[in-house]
């Protein structure tokens, strides 16, 4: 499967909160090829400041309309510029990049965990899991209720949803790892369960610790600063328990959680 580099027109852009944006782009080839966990590398601006592309997970891919959606938080100048673009403008995309989640047609339940904007890849993942007909448990933690959105279609599809917010404004007060802890405590068996986790590094490290030694296989989606996005620059290294470095962009971004060394 070939990666594309293409200028993609913006179909729509909406604000979810004052910092979170949902951007829909027309790019049929990427929409057709993308798998959950993969990302696109976005040139937000034609000048040399900002210089590098920005990586964003594929949040949704609509093969019929030939569109993909990105969900992003406005952090710095790249995302601020992206937000300023209106319909009709185009952005240059490279993608899909990286290796997505390994999804098999097994019947086992999928436990999808997302922290904050980890929902970006998680939503796409759940969409595909549901297409495969797999039962899905979704645990999602955010800062507060206003960052929780878009769950209706999952509810309708029978996804079991557990929510947590830092400020307790919705669901359990605390983080998504609190939800996982409770779940593990209450679950009689972890058989026939497969884990997927997307979120900031401290959350991934906590999940790694919680499942250590348990019979629960978890795939984690990592983030690291990137230049090339294609395995060439060796910039996005992450250390493995083996002591070796792997590249988030080309060896990942999805890794078996037990293999990653979050210590360093």
């Amino acid at each position, binding site marked *: 499967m*070939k*990666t594309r*580099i293409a200028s993609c027109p913006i179909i729509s852009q909406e604000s979810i909160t004052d910092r979170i944006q949902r951007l829909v782009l027309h790019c049929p080839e990427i929409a057709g090829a993308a798998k959950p966990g993969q990302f696109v590398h976005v*040139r937000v601006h034609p000048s*040399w*400041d*900002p*210089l*590098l*592309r920005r990586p964003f997970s594929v949040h949704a891919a609509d093969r019929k309309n030939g569109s993909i959606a990105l969900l992003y938080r406005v952090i710095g100048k790249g995302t601020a510029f992206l937000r300023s673009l209106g319909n009709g403008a185009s952005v240059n995309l*490279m993608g899909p990049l990286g290796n997505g989640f390994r999804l098999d047609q097994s019947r086992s339940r999928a436990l999808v965990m997302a922290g904050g904007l980890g929902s970006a890849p998680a939503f796409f993942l759940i969409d595909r899991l549901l297409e495969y007909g797999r039962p899905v448990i979704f645990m999602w933690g955010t800062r507060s209720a206003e960052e929780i959105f878009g769950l209706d279609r999952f509810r309708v599809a029978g996804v079991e949803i557990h929510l947590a917010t830092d400020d307790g404004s919705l669901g359990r007060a605390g983080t998504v790892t609190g939800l996982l802890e409770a779940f593990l405590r209450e679950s009689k068996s972890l058989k026939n369960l497969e884990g997927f986790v997307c979120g900031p590094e401290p959350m991934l490290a906590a999940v790694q610790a919680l499942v250590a030694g348990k019979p629960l296989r978890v795939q984690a989606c990592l983030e*690291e*600063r*990137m*230049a*090339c*996005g*294609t*395995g*060439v*620059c*060796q*910039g*996005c*290294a*992450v*250390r493995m328990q083996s002591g*070796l*470095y792997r590249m988030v962009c080309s060896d990942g971004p999805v890794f078996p959680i037990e293999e990653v060394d979050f210590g*360093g």
Partner: protein
Amino acid sequence: MAVDLSVRIGSLVLKNPVLTASGTFGYGTEYSEYFDPSLLGGIVTKTITLEPRAGNPMPRIAETPAGMLNSIGLANVGVEKYITEKLPLLEGLDTAVIANVAGNTAEEYGVLVRRLSGLRRVDAFEINISCPNVRKDGLAFGMDAEATRDVVRCVRSETDKTVIVKLTPNVTDIVAIARAAVEAGADALSLINTVLGMAVDIETRRPLLARVTGGLSGPAIKPIALARLYQVRQSLDVPLIGIGGIMTAGDALEFFFTGATAVEVGTLNFIDPLGSVSILSGLVRYCEGRGISSFSSIIGTLVLES
């Protein structure tokens, strides 16, 4: 009109003057999915050391205004795997392969070049003397004229292929280093390697690179690269390869006018894998548009006030 794009660097004839810079194009085939590397004048492969190197701790890169910092730490597969696993992938490509090497001692440079010189697929050498953190005193070989001379002597005695010495801009007197390299037998010089730089994350108060300082590349350093090229061009008469922030055919022309015989495209590859071929076609269009039949006729045509 067909433009003759070929240029000569020592005994090496390049079919066109656009190369990719070491460390920004992998071992030569990583971007083959995007275009045929045979379109390029040449590929400078990632710096190879005697032993494999895992590279520096992360984070290894950071963005700065119109630039990026890296401290990859010469991560590479080592010379043996380079020979057995990487070079074979380049068989059949119609482009020059320039092996970039670095050693911990002057002698190690010699050993590396000896090991590689007999291989058909290695067309020339680029000697990376710009990497600090390798010598005990923290200085790079390329920051000292005597150390440069030692390295180049060791290399020269091991090969008849073209030897290109890659200079660092982080010096007081680049001409002295350049002269030492040429006197010791370098056929050509390439410049510049990255500029020493640093950035701080103001949220965490930590350096953005684990190794604190790193190498600055990208458009930000283009003026620095041009000034260094100009200094060396004014003093020495060897082929020069221009490197540093080249993003467009126009940028490349700045280097050619100033006296570069070829250019290497670096950071641009990360932003646009097709960037090097776009530059090449831009140069062709430039020549065609002006009725220039031989590309090399534009080299060094900078107009200076009398």
